[in-house]
């Protein structure tokens, strides 16, 4: 692979004409990849959000209605399946497609409010630590560093088991335990921006603290924080499903992707579709947010875009 790099000039100038078809194909592919992936992420994400919001209109059945006579039906395209139940039914005869559509509500609620809490706490404490420094900074960062050094998921599982399963508990656990990440990013950015020439000149002409924070520091924080928030929302959806898989998240009969996976696991060998579809839903959601996050990072951070070239 190294031999194709024999011409050093190629390393520094992307605009150089290139003879090999592989490279031509490649650079077109690279351009396409960027826009195409961001667009795909956005489309997928909007679709998932809309189906969660309009779940009652989309779901063909009541997600909680049991029908033992129609239990363990395979998906529509498999032998013995019908379009009455596109993804088949679970052991209690509940329609899997409807349950997945409704399950998106729990996942997105946890992801959205979890990130909202973590972001607000992170912004408040990170600004305080970064702007005031000194002892306040030491205390805030000391506590944050303990959280950041821990095997995160293990503590989330333990704390969820102690507090008991409910939607509110799950949101609070994620919101609080994820705040240290936002604190660290906010603080780092504040320290960087404070040293910049324009903030120093604003201070020297007597701008108030409030003015500096609101009109110089906050606008610069939006880019990095939105990007991190996207990735963290995806991570929370992941972790919520993980808790659900261990039966530590929102309890049944509310359908969540995690508890659907857990019940599908019992019948994996004979009725594999029961576990397959909720997992696919988690993966597609996470994929959409990761694509969106990568794209946002490139769009919102031009420095990075230049470095990537």
């Amino acid at each position, binding site marked *: 692979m190294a031999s194709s790099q024999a011409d050093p000039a190629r390393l*520094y100038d992307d605009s150089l004409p290139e003879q090999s078809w592989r490279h031509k194909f490649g650079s077109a592919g690279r351009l396409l990849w960027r826009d195409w992936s961001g667009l795909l992420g956005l489309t997928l994400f909007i679709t998932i959000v809309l189906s969660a919001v309009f779940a009652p209109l989309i779901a063909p059945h009541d997600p909680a209605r049991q029908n033992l006579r129609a239990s363990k039906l395979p998906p529509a395209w498999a032998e013995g399946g019908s379009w009455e139940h596109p993804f088949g039914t679970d052991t209690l005869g509940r329609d899997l497609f409807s349950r997945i559509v409704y399950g998106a509500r729990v996942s997105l609620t946890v992801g959205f409010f979890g990130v909202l809490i973590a972001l607000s706490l992170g912004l408040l404490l990170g600004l305080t630590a970064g702007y005031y420094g000194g002892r306040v900074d030491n205390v805030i960062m000391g506590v944050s560093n303990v959280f950041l*050094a*821990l095997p995160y998921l293990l503590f989330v599982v333990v704390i969820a088991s102690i507090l008991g399963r409910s939607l509110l508990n799950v949101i609070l656990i994620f919101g609080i335990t994820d705040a240290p990440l936002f604190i660290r990013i906010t603080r780092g950015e504040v320290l960087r921006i404070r040293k910049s020439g324009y903030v120093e000149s604003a201070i020297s002409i007597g701008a108030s603290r409030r003015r500096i924070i609101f009109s110089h520091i906050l606008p610069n924080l939006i880019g990095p924080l939105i990007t991190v928030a996207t990735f963290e929302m995806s991570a929370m959806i992941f972790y919520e499903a993980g808790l659900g898989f261990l039966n530590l998240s929102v309890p049944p009969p509310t359908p969540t992707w995690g508890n659907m996976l857990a019940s599908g696991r019992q019948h994996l060998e004979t009725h594999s579709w029961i576990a397959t579809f909720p997992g696919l839903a988690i993966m597609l959601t996470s994929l959409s947010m990761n694509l969106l996050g990568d794209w946002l990072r490139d769009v919102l951070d031009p420095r990075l875009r230049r470095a990537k070239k």
Partner: protein
Amino acid sequence: MKYRLSPFPHAMQRYLLSRLVQSLFLLIGVLILVFFMVRLTGDPARLMMPREASPADIAAFRAAMGLDRPLPVQFWEFMRGAVVGDFGNSLHYRAPAMQIVLERLPATLELAAAALTFALLVAVPLGIIGGSNPGSLWDFLARTAGLIGQTVPNFWLALLLLLFFAVNLGWFPTFGRDEAKSVVLPAVALGFFTMGQLVRLTRSAVLEIRGEDYIRTAYSKGLPTNIIYARHIFRNAAIPLVSIIGVQFGYLLSGSIYIETIFAWPGLGRMIAESVAARDYPLVQAIAFFTSAVVVLLNLLTDIAYAIIDPRIRYGQ
């Protein structure tokens, strides 16, 4: 100021000392968290007893466990025990919690090490080839692997691997740790996320270093391409990889909760899922502290390794 022949050992010593003190503080922080964790609901005795236990039983348990003493006394006793590795007895196994943790540790370390090996074996070559040929088919593969690794939930992947390779094809056992090949499926499922992270990191490190001035210099003085890659690019790309291995090991230990449960792997991850369900919180406290201590120690070691490889770190202090 006194003249020193070399500022080297001095800077290194100071760096090591500060990292050591920092790690100690982290461990104390973890102990405080582990102590208060079981008191979040206000009554640890009720938390640890079965739901159907009578108030008299709970009161007896509270007295037996010393949970009726003042909080500062309990805290002092807890910290004093923790320093010598005494977290009390497991309620379920009726044996010292730390002893049980140590018995289960090798299985978990084996699984995590196998998962990390899998991740490195796939990620490093793929990241290097992808990063060296941006826009190529290999690069596309590397990007895809990075993305898929981050988006597939490990517990779902474990179920899929189990279904295809153990149930349908019969290549691997479905559970347990009886044969050498038992570790393969759990290790792949557990290491998949780390693989994705490492591919992304390796790829972007190689891509970035390729554009550095010293690479241009190396080319202009006429060094052959493969020597530039071996001596300058790969060596510098290894630095960020080393630095996140400690963090990744923490992910692996956390992720083992699901993977060990699915594959009935007799390690700490499965034990924590079981102890949480059985309300065996002294054991949970021991596992939580011990796992955190392993992660803190690994982070310390990687930081030291990092400072040895890269002099810029210790001078940056």
